[in-house]
């Protein structure tokens, strides 16, 4: 990085040396070097501006969450934590938060169990329609939320609710939320865990089995310890996806509220101060989780599944 921040002066200094050797080719070289540096700086400038673009609205929101004037910057009337106190005292909102945590934990657990098993099938077994199975497994991530939401709503409300005996289970509510999010979270586990299994040396498993370990023992003692970080990352991803999802939940929630749908109604009725506070609180929370996860494991590797270098 240090070489990139060379000042224009040193470039000129070098230019002096180059012209001393005085050939036409040398001036060409000098232009080349200068342009090289210019492009490099331009690249850094664009990168910097992009980060500003990504961060500005969130920064403003966090700032406003601590400001007395909660919807716009001017006139600035001083700082306060009142909005936070009011937010945490809001029983409806906190209830919705609790619901979100429950739904996310249950659905991510289901997604993780199914995803790990399916990853084992993809990475260790040969079967017909394997590519089809994989594509099918990634589908919930690709289908837009509106489509998945409406398809599941019609399915639960019009088709399954009419069934004898079990019909009542599928009246939109807690269970339908968990089922919907378990499907939505599945691809994230599948992608992350299967990517890890593909790079894992299979001969270790064979060795364990040759030495007399059963399939379950092999998984428990050999495979699991190696893929455990990936399973953890998959669970975390599925959890966050469920926790932050609005549109799928909005369709299948029935009369129940999760955090996102409760926040959505807040904005509809214009409760900006609490909205700023709860939103900023989420930003802080995610920042901590992400910082910890990035130091404990290699998050970027999982995020850019496939392209990552494990030793980065």
């Amino acid at each position, binding site marked *: 990085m240090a070489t990139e921040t060379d000042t224009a002066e040193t470039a000129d200094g070098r230019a002096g040396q180059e012209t001393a050797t005085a050939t036409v080719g040398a001036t060409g070289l000098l232009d080349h070097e200068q342009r090289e540096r210019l492009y490099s700086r331009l690249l850094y400038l664009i990168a910097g501006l992009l980060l500003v673009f990504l961060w500005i609205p969130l920064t403003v929101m966090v700032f406003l969450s601590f400001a007395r004037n909660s919807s716009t*910057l001017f006139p600035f009337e001083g700082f306060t934590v009142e909005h936070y106190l009011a937010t945490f005292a809001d029983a409806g909102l906190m209830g919705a938060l609790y619901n979100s945590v429950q739904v996310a934990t249950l659905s991510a657990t289901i997604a993780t169990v199914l995803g790990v098993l399916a990853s084992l099938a993809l990475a260790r077994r040969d079967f017909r329609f394997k590519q089809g199975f994989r594509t099918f497994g990634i589908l919930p991530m690709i289908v837009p939320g509106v489509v998945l939401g409406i398809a599941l709503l019609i399915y639960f409300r019009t088709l399954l609710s009419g069934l004898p005996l079990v019909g009542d289970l599928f009246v939109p509510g807690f269970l339908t939320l968990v089922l919907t999010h378990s499907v939505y979270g599945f691809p994230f586990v599948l992608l992350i865990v299967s990517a890890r299994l593909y790079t894992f040396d299979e001969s270790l498993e064979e060795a364990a089995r040759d030495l007399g370990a059963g399939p379950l023992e092999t998984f428990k003692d050999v495979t699991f310890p190696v893929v455990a970080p990936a399973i953890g990352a998959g669970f975390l991803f599925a959890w966050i996806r469920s926790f932050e999802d609005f549109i799928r939940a909005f369709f299948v929630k029935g009369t129940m509220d999760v955090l996102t749908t409760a926040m959505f109604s807040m904005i509809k009725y214009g409760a900006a101060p609490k909205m700023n506070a709860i939103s900023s609180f989420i930003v802080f929370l995610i920042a901590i989780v992400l910082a910890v996860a990035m130091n404990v494991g290699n998050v970027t590797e999982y995020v850019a599944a496939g392209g990552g270098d494990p030793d980065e």
Partner: protein
Amino acid sequence: MGTSTESDDTLSFLRTEDGKLLVTAGPSGVWLGLLLLLPLTFMITVSFMNVNDSYNIVWQPSLENYGQLFGGQGPFWQTSFFESLLLSYFVAAVTTVLCLTLAFPLAYLLARKGGRLFKIVIFLVLLPFFTMYLVRAYSWLLMFGPSGVLNATLLQLGVIGEPLGVLNFGVPAIIVGLTHAYFPYMLLSLYASLDGIDFSLVEAARDLGASRAEVLIDVILPLALPGIISGSLFVFVPSLGAFITPRFLGQGKVLMIGQLIEERINSLYAIGYGSAASMFIVVTIVVAFGVAFRYVSVDELGGV
């Protein structure tokens, strides 16, 4: 554990190849079959059926739902559905191009530099990315509008005399919001493919006299093609069906297809109309992925 013969049989079956496959792929296959394949099939079926006033499906094939989408007074291109569809394609296309242009330089920089800078930048990119989508859309809601932060700040600084129309709610605001929302998908996809590039190829091309533009077009872009394609898909598809961003940043001035579907379903439970409208998104995705798979394999679509 395996004292009775029955469980011995079960155990020995589980040791066979079929048994192992059944245990590993079976549960998710059933789960996805029941909660993904069947609902989508049902939705497609409903779109071709009539639904009566008591929300019951009349099991008779009919194109009435599709007729309704394009029906009403005036020619079909003046129906609210067609206008929404066109607007959605436009917004999704502009967002995709914008994300691609913005993310490419950053992805290139990340792939070439690495190290500490990489970790910091990726943290700064991932944090907004992991932040609730709703929160990000809301944060732009604060920025835009006649008395939003952007206009208010410019007015305060005396840069402008009255609120700028472009900073009001509407299509430009929606595009900015969607770009902000889906930019990381593009960045990560591009980074994943650029990271695998041997950059000595770039230097070789330069040494052999290729110009910067030639290197970009002839060397870098072809190598980054899988990332460009998968990144574009991961931006275009969710932008096409977006709901919350156009809802917040359009403020009722414009209606994208996702909003139209939501409105018909949640206020009228018009499942026929909603299903038929959703089919346009589904078919677009199928076509988009069909085209994409000619250039990249499903493995390269990892990305997210």
